[in-house]
């Protein structure tokens, strides 16, 4: 019951954020200099063609009416049609979304899979060789932009070593083939995050390991493994989870570069092509989808706090 009320109040906040996002995305059409129809059709379009296109797109109607219509369409799940091919944008997004989502989730998965044990090891062996090497390498990977890492990985593992397929996704291939094509893009996104999570977790674990309740466990002979991975990790995870929630936004941004470098279909490639062809309804739709994913992730992160720290849930009830 309490959980349902929390989810309800968070969903209301999320809905407000999404309406705000829809308004901003709608404003895109207003800030494009001049007539969007003109911009879209290019300099050689006849005035008649521009007029006809404006009418077809509803651009000749008052702004408020256009916004209401846009909002209503979004609510109905209608993101409009591609101005070039005329296909429904929802279908186009739905086709490529799984690629982006699987890429982002794989990257987060890799970051957690390697970052968490590395952070735990570094916190329990501060000053050790692995701790110091991990610190240096982490900072390196945090500092290097994603797309540089992506290109380097592509050079080393696909071109020189020939361990992984170079480009693309395997739309009809086996699961193994699909995973092989996912590995390098996901790794290129994850590398910075592995180090980031490890450093962050190391710092908060070191704090928690100095607390009195850890001393209690030690005085009662509880195994170090249980102390670190159960009793210290849970309270130490909160800052990391918060950063990961915000990081999804950066990961989605990074996914655009990874998709372009590795020539994968996805929201990133879709929005890149749409910008290049001034296909603004597609750009709007993609931005909306990304904002939606980001908001949804942060909803989950918010809800996870209550599980990670019951005192937070209690404080919110007051």
């Amino acid at each position, binding site marked *: 019951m309490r959980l349902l009320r929390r989810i309800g109040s968070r969903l209301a906040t999320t809905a407000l954020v999404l309406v705000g996002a829809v308004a901003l995305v709608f404003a895109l059409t207003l800030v494009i200099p001049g007539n969007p129809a003109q911009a879209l059709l290019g300099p050689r379009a006849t005035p008649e063609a521009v007029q006809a296109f404006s009418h077809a797109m509803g651009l000749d109607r008052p702004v408020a009416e256009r916004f209401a219509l846009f909002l209503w369409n979004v609510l109905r799940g209608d993101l409009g049609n591609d101005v070039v091919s005329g296909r429904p944008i929802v279908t186009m997004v739905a086709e490529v979304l799984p690629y982006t989502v699987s890429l982002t989730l794989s990257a987060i998965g890799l970051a957690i899979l390697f970052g968490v044990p590395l952070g735990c090891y570094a916190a329990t062996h501060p000053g050790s060789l692995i701790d110091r090497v991990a610190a240096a390498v982490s900072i390196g990977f945090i500092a290097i932009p994603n797309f540089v890492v992506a290109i380097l990985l592509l050079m080393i593992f696909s071109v020189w070593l020939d361990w992984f397929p170079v480009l693309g996704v395997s739309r009809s291939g086996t699961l193994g083939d699909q995973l092989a094509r996912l590995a390098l893009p996901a790794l290129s996104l994850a590398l910075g995050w592995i180090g980031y999570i490890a450093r962050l977790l190391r710092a908060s674990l070191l704090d928690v390991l100095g*607390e*009195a*309740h*850890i*001393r*209690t*466990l*030690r*005085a*009662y*002979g*509880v*195994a170090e493994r*249980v102390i670190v991975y*159960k*009793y210290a990790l*849970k*309270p130490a995870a909160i800052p990391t989870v918060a950063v990961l929630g915000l990081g999804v936004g950066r990961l989605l941004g990074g996914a655009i570069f990874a998709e372009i470098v590795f020539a994968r279909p996805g929201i990133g490639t879709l929005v890149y092509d749409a910008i290049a062809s001034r296909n603004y309804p597609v750009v709007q739709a993609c931005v909306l989808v990304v904002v939606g994913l980001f908001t949804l992730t942060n909803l989950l992160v918010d809800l996870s706090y209550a599980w*990670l*720290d*019951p*005192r937070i849930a*209690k404080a919110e009830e007051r």
Partner: protein
Amino acid sequence: MTRPTQDADPLIAIRDLSVSFATSAGPAEVLRNVTLDLGRGRIVGLVGESGSGKSTLASAITRLLPANLSRLDGGILYEGRDLLAEPEAAVAALRGSRFAMIFQDPMGALNPVFRVGTQLVDLQRAKAPKASRRDRMARAVAMLTRVGIPDAARRIRDYPHQFSGGMRQRIMIAAALLCEPDLLIADEPTTALDPTIEGQIVALIDELRHGFQGTILLISHSLGLVSHLCDDVAVLYAGALVERGPAAAVLGAPRHPYTRALLACEIGADVVRRATLATIPGDAPDPTRLPPGCVFAPRCSQAIDSCRDAVPELRPVDGDGGHAAACLLV
């Protein structure tokens, strides 16, 4: 219930224990040549000011000393073994199965993000490694009821922040008793509590000790608490054991000037109307720069020149009654 008097075969025999820590000001001698027996089934009070080395002595027994330890000499004998010479893993195996601890701060001693029941189940791991989670949970509920937590079967699913400080200290006492330890170390168990709650916890310890077979080491700076609960008393000053013996003898007829001064400082009902409270002049010495000879000599009103020449040995003051003091004047 009568308890055996001074024991020829103590549970723990601390011999010439010296502990130093590395600090930026040089090595801090926190304990120096401490020799003390903890008799079987007895409650031993360890008193002294803050920084006198009380907690360090407890940590030395369980070998949970901080990382800046620079010197650990002497011996701590338990069941024919020297705990200081044993490998770390061997001593770790005793924690939670033979030794249990209750800490000063019940607010911090429990993990804030796990249910009390989960923690009590895991704290029994060393004692009952083969017992099922359900068994350990059932034992925890029974023990919480015994230490006075109402509706324990339901409250065991609560988190620590849902309990008051006094209730949390009851939980810690339950955790310690669940281990059925040979040695229970209670490090200032009532210091962080309100006076009314303190009284309740003291009454609880008083009540529980009759069913408890093991030895209790009660660390406190409250002489009232120690005289109320303890069979034996040991007085520490600046890392040196200055007086020890049966509680009635040490607190009733103190021989060391420091013990006398401590007793004079105690705020009792009879001193309320006195114009000024008794204090000991001066400060406890800096453990990185201890004075030569008797460490208490610089603050001692009765000190003579030879007090500053050599560290006085602990000498019996009443034949073989176990009462001893480290002072040239006795």
